[in-house]
């Protein structure tokens, strides 16, 4: 056995062990806990880079364990897995830093960081899963480990939000379970990438396989917050800002979207799915969700709520890209998985900064905040412009590919969807930017924190700046070898359209 084969397991274990150690630590050991957290995040990043090297050589390390007769847990690092794993591990590092700053002096940090790490461990499991069964296991584990984070504050509102979250995600989980179990009953264990196996099944039971496709997508669609399963996402906003970042950018919605990618490309195969007519309903739903999310975002007065509906809309860009038959659409969808993550995490960091530093929660309270917190506001502006899709921020790249992908797939009407959604995005972000930069300050801030820093504390500020910069760089240097775009192209070339 090659040493590289143990890398996927090592990636998973770094955050899992970190979680276990943190659970064992007494509440008061803040410094030690933070050190372990950061060390684990850095270690994971190193391991991911090592793994990237291996995957670039067209070598896909794999470990498996037979857990039930004929059924194995498989961890396998392929190019697509690395896309998601890379994104999560980068964002984990910054979210951890941010969370350490954000939760300073608040209770229950041991519990928080423990589940936080567990949550990232499950995300790693999701990205490295080598078959649907493994995916399902980590997908459910993600639900379990995020629940304590959502209800972290322990207030009535957060417990209610936790209940809503559970109803949606567990409901989606069992639908997914039934889909996975039915697929297994028909064809046995199908590792990702073995689309020939599925093709044979579709030949025999076309009706069943279409039903299973619907079950799988519906189950995954809950976490991806596709309409009508998006209801939990705005409700879960009561959680602390780092958790929102985790839900929206790093882990949860991404897990759903990533799962859909896996099902479409690695279980059914895009060509087969296209031929069977399974994709166009997905395109329709995604388009509708994009418009619906934007429309709802426009009506929100709470910053985080507006961002939440923006996520509903943005994640469906990914789904849209996946559902378009053709390499350009695929690239657009995959690259947006990364870009949306970077931009959304920036926005949430900034929203958290406003709330922590000045007590601002509503949009109308933002008047003149640009002068008080220029750096945070600059990062926020970058993220918002990227969401609208203005060049040179990363969002532009995604939309460009999605548009050309739609043309390639012969679905010209999708262009209209993209344009109108961009207009809506502009409509709900530009007024915010106007308030930040151009409106004068109205009276005192709701709840100002006294710090010796001009903007806000470094631990809150730096992660936001870094992710904002990254999303700018991803757009500016889209054509370089290291950019998310190149990686998405690599995946597309290597795996889907040989």
């Amino acid at each position, binding site marked *: 056995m090659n040493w590289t084969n143990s890398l996927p397991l090592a990636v998973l274990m770094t955050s899992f062990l970190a979680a276990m150690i943190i659970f064992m630590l007494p509440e008061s050991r803040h410094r030690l806990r933070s050190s372990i957290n950061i060390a684990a995040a850095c270690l994971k990043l190193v391991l991911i880079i090592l793994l990237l090297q291996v995957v670039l050589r067209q070598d896909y390390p794999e470990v498996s364990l037979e857990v039930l007769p004929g059924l194995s847990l498989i961890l396998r690092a392929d190019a697509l897995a690395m896309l998601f794993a890379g994104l999560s591990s980068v964002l984990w590092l910054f979210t951890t830093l941010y969370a350490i700053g954000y939760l300073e002096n608040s209770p229950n940090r041991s519990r928080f960081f423990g589940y936080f790490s567990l949550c990232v461990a499950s995300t790693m499991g999701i990205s490295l899963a080598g078959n649907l069964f493994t995916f399902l296991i980590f997908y459910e584990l993600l639900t379990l480990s995020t629940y304590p984070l959502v209800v972290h504050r322990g207030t009535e509102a957060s417990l209610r939000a936790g209940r809503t979250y559970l109803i949606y995600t567990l409901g989606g989980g069992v639908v997914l379970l039934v889909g996975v*179990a039915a697929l297994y009953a028909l064809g046995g264990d199908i590792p990702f990438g073995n689309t020939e196996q599925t093709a044979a099944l579709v030949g025999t039971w076309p009706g069943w396989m279409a039903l299973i496709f619907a079950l799988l997508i519906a189950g995954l669609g809950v976490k991806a917050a596709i309409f009508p399963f998006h209801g939990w996402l705005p409700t879960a906003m009561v959680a602390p800002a780092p958790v929102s970042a985790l839900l929206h950018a790093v882990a949860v919605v991404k897990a759903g979207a990533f799962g859909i990618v896996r099902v479409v490309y690695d279980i059914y195969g895009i060509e087969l799915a296209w031929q069977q007519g399974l994709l166009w309903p997905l395109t329709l739903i995604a388009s509708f969700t994009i418009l619906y999310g934007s429309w709802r975002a426009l009506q929100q007065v709470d910053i985080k709520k507006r961002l939440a509906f923006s996520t509903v809309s943005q994640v469906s860009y990914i789904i849209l890209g996946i559902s378009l038959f053709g390499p350009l659409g695929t690239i657009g969808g995959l690259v947006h998985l990364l870009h949306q993550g970077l931009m959304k995490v920036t926005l949430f960091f900034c929203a958290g900064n406003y709330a922590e530093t000045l007590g601002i929660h509503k949009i109308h309270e933002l008047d003149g905040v640009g002068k008080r917190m220029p750096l945070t506001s600059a990062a926020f502006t970058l993220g918002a412009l990227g969401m609208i899709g203005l060049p040179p921020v990363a969002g532009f790249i995604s939309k460009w590919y999605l548009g050309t992908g739609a043309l390639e797939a012969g679905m010209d009407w999708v262009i209209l969807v993209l344009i109108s959604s961009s207009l809506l995005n502009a409509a709900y972000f530009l007024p915010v930017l106007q308030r930040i930069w151009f409106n004068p300050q109205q009276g005192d801030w709701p709840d100002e924190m006294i710090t010796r820093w001009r903007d806000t504390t470094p631990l809150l500020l730096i992660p936001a700046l870094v992710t904002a910069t990254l999303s700018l760089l991803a757009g500016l240097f889209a054509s370089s070898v290291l950019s998310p775009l190149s990686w998405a192209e690599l995946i597309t070339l290597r795996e889907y359209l040989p």
Partner: protein
Amino acid sequence: MSLMQSPMPWLLVIPLAGATLTMLLPDRWRSAASALGILSQLVAALLLSYQVIQSGPQIYAMGNWQAPLGIALRADGLAMLFILMSALVSSLCALYAQSYLKAEKRANFWPLFWFLWASLNGIWLAADTFNLYVGLELLTLAAVGLVAFAADERSLEASIRYLYAALLGSMGYLLGVALLYGAHGTLALDSLAEHWHWGPTSQVAVTLIVGGLLLKTAVFPLHTWLPPAHGGALTPVSALLSALVIKASFYMLLRFWIELDIYRHLPSLSQLLGILGAGAIFWGGWMALRQQHLKWVVAYSTVAQIGYMLLMFPLLTAGQSDASQLAYQGGILMLLAHALAKAGMFLAAGNLMICTGKPDLQALAGMSRYRPLTIFAFGLAGVSLMGLPPSGGFSAKWLLLQSSLLSGQWWWVVVLVLGSLLSAAYIFRVFAYTYRETGEEGDRFARPALSMELTALTLSVASILLGFAAMLPLQLISLPGPLMEALP
């Protein structure tokens, strides 16, 4: 060397001797003797498993009289799994009880505990229908005694209810055995299976046996005695009862069902058992959702979980061998996962009640901050009970799902799925209470001993690990033996 002939009788001798000695010894020696007994039990169980794995099922003729004249003990893969399971759960519960009970209470706890263990081992190994009756009665009396241990109003009421239900159940069973003997002239399971005559007498006998055993297993709607008994007993007792005692009658049911070919002859009874199971899942889950008393939630959860185990019966159909195999594996795995998870959950619940000093859910506010380890144990056990991955409960549910899909009985899929959601509802309800912040500080809480927290955690973690190591028990129960031959 002669000692090593077969470890089988030692699995009975040690607990019986333990019961005798712990009655007579002074307290200091009592605990030491128990510890020694537990260790030697573990050794004997492992030795016997080794033998069974190496050289197949073992038959042991008591007093050297071959069955059917004498009584034989029989150790096959299934029996071994149950022996190992009860060894693990009982020893951890015993460890817990050592800290939980005060010295003067322990005096009477140990003999009862040892009798309980002896009867369990007796039942797992028994191959004689009347011997099973005596074992069942020994088990009942020990269990009732343990329930009545607290000697207050609630536990007395519970124990009387329990005793009456159990007595009726065993009498029904004995009546069935009487008919079987009259029709076949033998009491031994093996020779019954060999000379099995399927006619009215056998049908009535089987009906009575199944009915009696269902009552003793607390199958819905005959479950009403269970929640007070399991919810009202002392914590280590609740854990033993829910994890092991109800499994005894279930185990007997399964043996009869498969070895005497009942599944082949009474398919409608199979479906009936499945329907009762579904009823148990929904009713038990619904009642668990409505309880205000922590341990009653856990007790009603047992009612619901028994329902899952019953789902294996309609899936053991004569026609489909694959589906039947899956159902058998899934059912047994479900039982094992439940034993571990429920014991862990009861012990964790007991710890929480020690912390708050109150039995109700309301008092749990803020507990997830104060006792994260215990909450974690409770949560892990809950994961397995809900059947969420990765856990033994999930693997079991997966197998049952596969079996229902394969045999085309899709309605059980619906039951399994809805049941999972219901159990998630009542478990997360408890969990939500522990997250509530009331603003009061944590120092009003008492603190359970570390060993008590660790035993709960060990059991819960084991129920999770079972999800990864399910192949071991599945291989064990698939070893050749009379049961496997009779399985479709």
